[in-house]
């Protein structure tokens, strides 16, 4: 039998709904379904929603709502018969140049799993991944689950600077750094896509619940795409003048 979600206070301006206690797509789909449901049944005073692997944090305005009112609202929206867990958003295709300077840890991932770097690429591009959560740093998308042959623990000592666009493996997950930040995932490649932009709305390319698939590109292709972006940017600037 299905266990009803736990609804817990997170102080006096937020509640936390716990749909399960494991990282798996079935539980995460409950989180995503609730987010969609809440979007359609918003009441004034409900603030922003922060979805994660198996929980959802919901801010509320204590001037307008009490904890028990928010709890009641959440309870009424979380019945499994109300949750549409079948909606599957489109799959976002992500070009990646694997290995070399762009993926300095690919050889380590290969050695750790006693396979070749080429096999790492094959396995990594084979799956369609669910984006469980966006966070840690602006736009960072954590997704899973990677084939067991490329699972690799995080670095012992995190790097102080990981370039934007880096694609990494952290345990059973894979993820993309949207902005330059410190990080401890094993870097296997890099995408030329801009995944976080201050002047876009939403600012991040990924949101929790999205699906992603990676495909390999050459270094030349990577360079070409980067140049195209720069040209578009300078054209836009000229257009403004």
């Amino acid at each position, binding site marked *: 039998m299905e266990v009803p979600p736990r609804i817990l206070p997170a*102080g006096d301006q*937020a509640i936390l709904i716990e749909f399960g206690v494991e990282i798996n797509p079935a539980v995460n789909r409950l989180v995503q379904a609730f987010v969609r449901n809440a979007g359609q049944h918003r009441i004034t005073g409900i603030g922003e929603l*922060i979805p*994660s692997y198996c929980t959802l944090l919901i801010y509320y305005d204590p001037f307008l709502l009490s904890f028990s009112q928010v709890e009641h609202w959440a309870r009424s929206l979380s019945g499994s018969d109300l949750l549409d867990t079948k909606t599957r958003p489109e799959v976002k295709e992500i070009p990646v140049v694997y290995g070399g300077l762009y993926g300095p840890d690919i050889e380590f991932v290969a050695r750790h799993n006693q396979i070749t770097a080429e096999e790492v690429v094959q396995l990594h591009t084979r799956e369609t991944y669910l984006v469980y959560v966006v966070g*840690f740093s602006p736009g*960072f998308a954590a997704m899973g689950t990677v084939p067991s042959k490329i699972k690799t623990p995080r670095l012992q000592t995190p790097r102080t600077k990981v370039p934007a666009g880096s694609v990494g493996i952290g345990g059973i997950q894979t993820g993309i750094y949207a902005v330059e930040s410190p990080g401890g995932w094993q870097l296997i490649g890099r995408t030329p896509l801009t995944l976080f932009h201050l002047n876009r709305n939403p*600012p*991040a390319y990924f949101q929790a619940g999205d699906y992603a698939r990676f495909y390999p590109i050459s270094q030349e292709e990577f360079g070409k795409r980067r140049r195209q972006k720069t040209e578009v940017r300078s054209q836009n600037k000229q257009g403004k003048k």
Partner: protein
Amino acid sequence: MIEVIKPGFFTTVQDNGRWGYQGYGVGVAGAMDNFALSAANLLVGNPEGTAGLEMTVLGPMLKFHTETLLAIAGADLDPYLDGKSIPNWTCHFAPTGSTLSFGGKKKGARAYLAVFGGIDVPPVMGSRSTYLLGNFGGLEGRVLKSRDHLPIPLLVGTLPNLAGRFFPEKSRPPYAKNPTLRVVPGPFADFFSEEGVKAFFSAEYTVTPQSDRMGYRLQGDPIKRKKPEELITCGLANGTVQVPPDGQPIILLADRQTIGGYPIMATLIQADMPLIAQCVPGDKLRFAAVSTDKAREAYLQLWSNLKNICH
């Protein structure tokens, strides 16, 4: 325009935060003591959430190239306008060419400067708050430095007699050097042993020097765990008290990450956020549990005081 002559120890542009983007990994930032910023804004005739300066421990030296109304609230960093000591929580007129300076910390940690119309840096995602982690918002996403210029609007259409009005002491938060902070237990207090929970609610915790806008790291009786498992990363509310494996609690504040994975003992109530914002390393904290209803009552009470401006 305001010219920064000296930046002070740690001065940033802040408003009441960048809400709506935590789901994309963008933190809220905003004033640590939002009540003080709001009071200062109301005194100069601004809406509560207008951008001002958050000044930490050692205030800046600022020159006003535009006449304005100003108010300072929160910590007492010993402010002077053109060499003359001025009181906090009061609206003052600053003529063109006047200089605001600070003697040094007398009480508290963070003072807020509001000027008429606010600091007019470009908003990013609807907020002018400096987000240091993302290097955006505020002035170029960073702390102020010497020779910075902060745009402010011209003082037009404002009643000149706003100067002199003040915010009475009884309506301010009950700032204290060693406060008892009220918390709502959880959401994951069940990760800790009975002994651990008892320690948290009975021991005294000292604010360590490793405390900043991201969080306050405390030192005291280590809080022991019951479950060895890690918590699965979840969203983090303002005031979250998380406990890493060493058992020393961390209170997450304005510049916190949006999500995190240490078990959460309790969450500070919003009415007491101004109190923690004014604590400095060495201050001693205690924690007391309250219900969400009591917490809400305290919050409504404090914020209803905000309109109590005296003339």
